[in-house]
């Protein structure tokens, strides 16, 4: 187990170094750049020259690369071109927003997905099963962007059931402790703020959960069906083991392995989905940060750090998935 973790950590380091280099040179090969973004439409050629010099863009690319590497190694990702704040501050502010959203989406996807998938399998071929299959098909096919706007149009305009965007009502006092607004409200006993943040979380989380939910339902259903057909279930039944015990101890437990894999893989998809969901709901998280940093401003420092962070998260999540295999299925530990 320790060896697995160590090997993964080495993999992580190599991945990050390779990505760093790739990102650095890729960003600089793009047309336009921070100088343009910072200058706007009114700059004179003199200002352009001043800025190019001030940023060190007049130096050879390998000098810039060296400076960048040195900064990264010392943990300095520089300041955001767009806002002038340290990149670490920008990211650590957006990170909890995305995690809060992704966690809520995962809770919805797992909380609904596993039971529904299980029930569909248990009622194979019946109305519930057929309905589930159709609903999940729609869920997988519908573009997040469209679904987001649809939900918003139905539930925020006219009905006013939910707020259209943002993480908390404008002007609401909330104390920032962890950056997770729902949690912060609980920690500081500002229950009003916590409920308000939760209220804002519902639609974006539902939107983001749709695809993983549909996938989890389908995988759970298929997996449960497979297990139900296995000989050992028949044996267990034949031995007279009561049905609920079989289901709990054998069916669900054995069926969960592929589901956990999918949950791990969906984490990456969640982050990608968050980009669109955040845009629709003006959710100030990493997704928004990515689009803002690429779009108008070519915010190199933020982009570089974000890509490294995304890679690190991905590797770590997959490591956790592998470790959870070992917990669910002891045979995996032998590897």
């Amino acid at each position: 187990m320790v060896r697995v973790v160590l090997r993964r950590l080495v993999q992580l380091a190599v991945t990050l170094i390779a990505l760093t280099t790739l990102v650095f040179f890729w960003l600089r090969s793009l047309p336009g750049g921070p100088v343009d973004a910072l200058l706007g439409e009114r700059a004179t050629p003199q200002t352009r020259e001043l800025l190019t010099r001030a940023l060190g863009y007049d130096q050879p690319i390998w000098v810039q690369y060296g400076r960048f590497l040195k900064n990264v190694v010392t943990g300095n990702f520089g300041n955001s071109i767009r806002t002038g704040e340290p990149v670490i501050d920008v990211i650590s502010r957006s990170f909890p927003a995305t995690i809060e959203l992704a966690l809520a989406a995962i809770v919805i996807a797992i909380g609904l997905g596993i039971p529904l998938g299980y029930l569909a399998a248990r009622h194979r071929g019946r109305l519930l099963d057929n309905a589930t299959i159709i609903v999940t098909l729609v869920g997988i096919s519908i573009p997040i962007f469209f679904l987001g706007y649809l939900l918003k149009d139905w539930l925020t305009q006219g009905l006013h059931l939910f707020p259209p965007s943002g993480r908390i009502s404008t002007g609401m006092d909330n104390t920032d402790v962890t950056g997770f607004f729902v949690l912060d409200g609980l920690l500081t006993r500002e229950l009003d703020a916590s409920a308000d943040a939760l209220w804002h979380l519902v639609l974006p989380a539902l939107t983001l959960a749709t695809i993983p939910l549909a996938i989890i339902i389908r995988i759970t259903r298929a997996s449960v069906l497979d297990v139900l057909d296995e000989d050992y279930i028949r044996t267990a039944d034949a031995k007279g083991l009561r049905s609920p015990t079989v289901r709990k101890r054998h069916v669900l437990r054995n069926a969960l392995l592929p589901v956990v894999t999918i949950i791990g893989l969906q984490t990456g998809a969640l982050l990608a989905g968050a980009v669109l969901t955040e845009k629709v709901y003006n959710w100030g998280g990493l997704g928004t940060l990515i689009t803002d940093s690429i779009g108008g401003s070519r915010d190199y420092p933020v982009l570089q750090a974000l890509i490294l962070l995304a890679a690190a998260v991905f590797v770590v999540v997959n490591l956790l998935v592998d470790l959870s295999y070992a917990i669910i299925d002891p045979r995996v530990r032998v590897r």
Partner: protein
Amino acid sequence: MRASRMRATRFRAVIAAGAVATLMIGLAGCADSDRDNGGGEGSSSGGTFIFAGAGDPKNFDPIFNDDGESFRPIRQMYDTLVTHKPGTAELVGGLAESWENDATGKVWTFKLRQNVKFHDGTPLDAAAVCANFDRWYTMKGEAAQSQMIYYQDVFGGFEGSPDAVYDNCKAQDASTAVVTMKKYKGAFPGAFALTAFSIVSPEAVKKYDGNTVTQNGDSFAYSAFANEHPTGTGAFTYGGWNKATGEITLTKNPDYWGDKAKVDKMIIKIIKDENTRKQELRAGTVQAIDFPAPADRKALAGEGYKVLDRPAFNILYLGINQKNPKLRDLRVRQAIAYALNRAQLVQTKGPGGAAVADQFLPDTVLGYAPDVQKYEYNVDKAKQLLSEAGATGLTLNFYYPTEVTRPYMPNPQEIFTVLANDLQAAGIKINGVPRPWNGGFKDDVQQFGKQDLHILGWTGDYNDPGNFVGTFFGRAKPEFGDDAMTEMFSAIGKADATVDEAGKKAAFEQVNRDLATKWLPAVPIWHAPPALATAKNVEGLVPSPLTAETFNSVSLTK
């Protein structure tokens, strides 16, 4: 048997629990759906006014900014020496009650208002004004200087630079500041009203290290003054910027020298997506939004929202790059002008209130000539001119930007399509080249001049013809391609250097006539008023042609 049934029930309950928990989240939310957001208080004054802006500000030190989103909060916290009469581009007194310049045009004398105080309690006097001028001129470091985009543009450069326009500022007495320039510059007095040249508290700059801008990696870090302690004389004081929620809070300044704010607090909420801004307005969670989409304006107005047009102070043009030898022939450029059905474009794609432009500045600006040659849509004439010039079968690369909307160009792709169709109808083959705004368009067009044709435009910064035609055509630029248009450069230069106002007016009128008939480096397309939309209960918001609204006049009614 009973035990196993119980286990089965418990198991089902566990499975159901997940589903229920998830639904609970929804229900918890519903219960709060009619929450009050602290908005209108039902009276004609007081309360919180929430305005949805379209982007993040950079920081709150006026001199280091050049964009509208930074200027919006800055304008509420600071004042300029000269300002604009609300709703117009007409110059009126700001911190200076009056101003005059001498016969040489180089010496400007400002009579300051009495008893004006900065938010930190220090007095606004001539010494403070001079400290501002001196601060800009003597700013040290490439990092800081490179961010003073308006200063470089208007004042030519910094201490030690041969192009610097500023010479010195003397406090004649407490309320008289005399600013001397090295040479006359046509941009003044209009440029004194630029938000970038807002007067800041010298004490606060000193206390919070306002002149320190440091480079870090690929960007800059600003001082505590710029980020946390903006200190001006404005109608609102700084109340904080919550970056996690994208809210800038401004609080009423009870000691304001001018018309005190009618609301107690205002929040600028940053919502980048125009569709979301509209939905927030409809949901009642914000009371005003900037730049509603042209397509939404009718619907919003129909629902009872107030759609306020800013008088158009901008121009969209079709640029023609004379690096292409075919385009050096005036007849070809005129053919392009005749080929465009601009009236139809305005009707089909223009935001409400847009008007066909026949010169490169709005009619409210000095030097606008009503009698310039107008190119009415005439496709036969276009074909005839092309044939006379031996340019039949001409193929042109037409660059247009993507991933961007500008106040003068809400829908670049659609504008391109219509213009390209018009040109094709006249027999010019168009090769459309879309480029991301910051990912190639500005570089290719303005730096490298790769295009034959392009669409671009401008919103005026201050009321001066030089800020329009001078910016576009006052010097050789890759955008228009021909360095040999010296007659045009010198005519504009001369007009800009005319101190006498009547002379300046006549000179710029002639420039505008010649631009249409002799030079035609581009074809003016339209002036498009960018809009604001507000809820019914918002009173007193006066849209500014310069998008320079101040919100002290805003009140909320029931």
